[in-house]
């Protein structure tokens, strides 16, 4: 009961702040928390990056291994994106199979990488129909202080830019950097009453009346979207959020090692 009461009080407070253009942590409605990216954090991976988005901490490791192309795409390598939401990351973790939120997180990040054609799967074929590289993008959530989606895709993008094809280890040639073609950035907004804020903290996520994630690439395209949580957005909301997302995307992309260009 206490829990429900305090949740209610916090929600009301967050909403009233938003009405007057303010947020719990003092940010402007359209302001991200500080971003810190540490590429190459884990040397056991073929590519990796630790991303800190405010207090949110996400680690991504990329592994490249020999595999077999799918029967219906003999000329393409394969890509698997997985987000592990481990009990270390928040008190809300529940044991059992991955929660719907964890599955959504994996899929939303995966969709942005695929839709943006971040890597060209055709370049991962070794022998058509027989041998290819399998690219595993594994995201490990360490500290969930809100907005896992944006942090996870930043980590994935940085880890892919950092990755090396370990051809030597598998005796199929010399090592070479993994080619990264486009960099998708996801920008997540939540509605708090009439206000719509970017990069929500976990407190703001608990209060939200709808979440919208917009993935954009460096050419000015929207490549993926995901509305989540209970709540609704008008088409006009979406149009204006697309503009905000494009601007955030361009700025965040410059923070990646190697800058705005892939």
């Amino acid at each position, binding site marked *: 009961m206490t829990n429900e009461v305090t949740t209610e009080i916090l929600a009301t407070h967050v909403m009233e702040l938003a009405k007057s253009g303010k947020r719990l942590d003092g940010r402007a409605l359209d302001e991200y928390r500080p971003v810190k990216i540490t590429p190459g954090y884990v040397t056991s991976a073929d590519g990796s990056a630790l991303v800190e988005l405010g207090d949110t901490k996400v680690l991504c490791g990329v592994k490249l291994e020999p595999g077999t192309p799918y029967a219906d795409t003999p000329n393409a390598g394969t890509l698997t994106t997985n987000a592990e939401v481990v009990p270390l990351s928040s008190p809300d973790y529940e044991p059992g199979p991955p929660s719907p939120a964890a599955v959504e997180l994996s899929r939303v990040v995966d969709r942005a990488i695929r*839709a943006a054609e971040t890597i060209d799967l055709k370049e991962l074929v070794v022998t058509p129909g027989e041998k290819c590289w399998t690219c595993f993008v594994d995201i490990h959530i360490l500290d969930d202080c809100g907005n896992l989606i944006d942090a996870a895709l930043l980590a994935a993008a940085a880890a892919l830019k950092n990755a090396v094809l370990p051809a030597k280890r598998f005796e199929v040639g010399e090592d070479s950097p993994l080619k990264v073609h486009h960099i998708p950035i996801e920008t997540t907004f939540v509605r708090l009453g009439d206000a719509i804020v970017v990069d929500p903290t976990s407190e703001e996520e608990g209060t939200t009346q709808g979440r919208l994630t917009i993935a954009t690439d460096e050419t000015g395209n929207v490549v993926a979207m995901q509305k989540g949580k*209970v709540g609704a957005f008008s088409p006009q909301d979406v149009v204006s959020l697309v503009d905000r997302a494009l601007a955030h995307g361009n700025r965040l992309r410059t923070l990646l090692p190697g800058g705005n260009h892939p």
Partner: protein
Amino acid sequence: MGSVGAKDVPQLLDANGKRIDGRGLEELRPLKIEAGVLTRANGSAYVEWGENKVMAAVYGPREVHPRHMQENTKAVVQCRYNMASFSVDERKKPGLDRRSQEISKVISEAFESVLFVEEYPRTSIGIYIEILQANAGTRCAGIVAASVALADAGIPMSDLVPAIAVGKVGGKLAVDLRKEEDNYGEADMPMALVPKSGRLVLLQMEGHMTAPEMAQALEMGVRGCQQVYEVQKDALKRRYAIQRPTEAV
């Protein structure tokens, strides 16, 4: 969008701007809805939309199982979107894969946005969608069916929820994609609308669209949803027309 490394890519628009099945860009596939098709469910609906065949059933409000998922201040809305193993070309392993789990989640959230969940604390409302035959747009067809099933079950909600996908094929925006258009087109954007409020409760997108294209696609989607909405209301009218004489007996 599944075209990477695939063998043959079909032509999606002909010289006259007609689509692969002869439709215009804003033309829907034939849509048929029947309410009240199942006996055990509290509400149900069957939808045939192009070559999609979808059944939806609603149970509740009823006790929550397992008990620890119960919420003290509202009903829990549990949607399960499931594809029959024979609904697609290559047999699908039975059970919910990650795609189905994600769709189940966003549909649950879409309906919780229109249901008066605070009025049924400590209960669950189960929304079950079975895709029997699939040809692109199944999540939209599922929402359309579930929405009618909820009404058939007599569960109060703020509005019916029509849904449609808008996509980009051969460089043009088009509504209600079929399989080839979904596989080889440039973008796919499913959406679900609350007509009375004009707001979207489901919105997903994958592909490539510029900001102006997005604005136009949203408008086309809203117009498409309005058409679907009429078919939904019509199905419910027919359902009530059937029930009334029976009740009079």
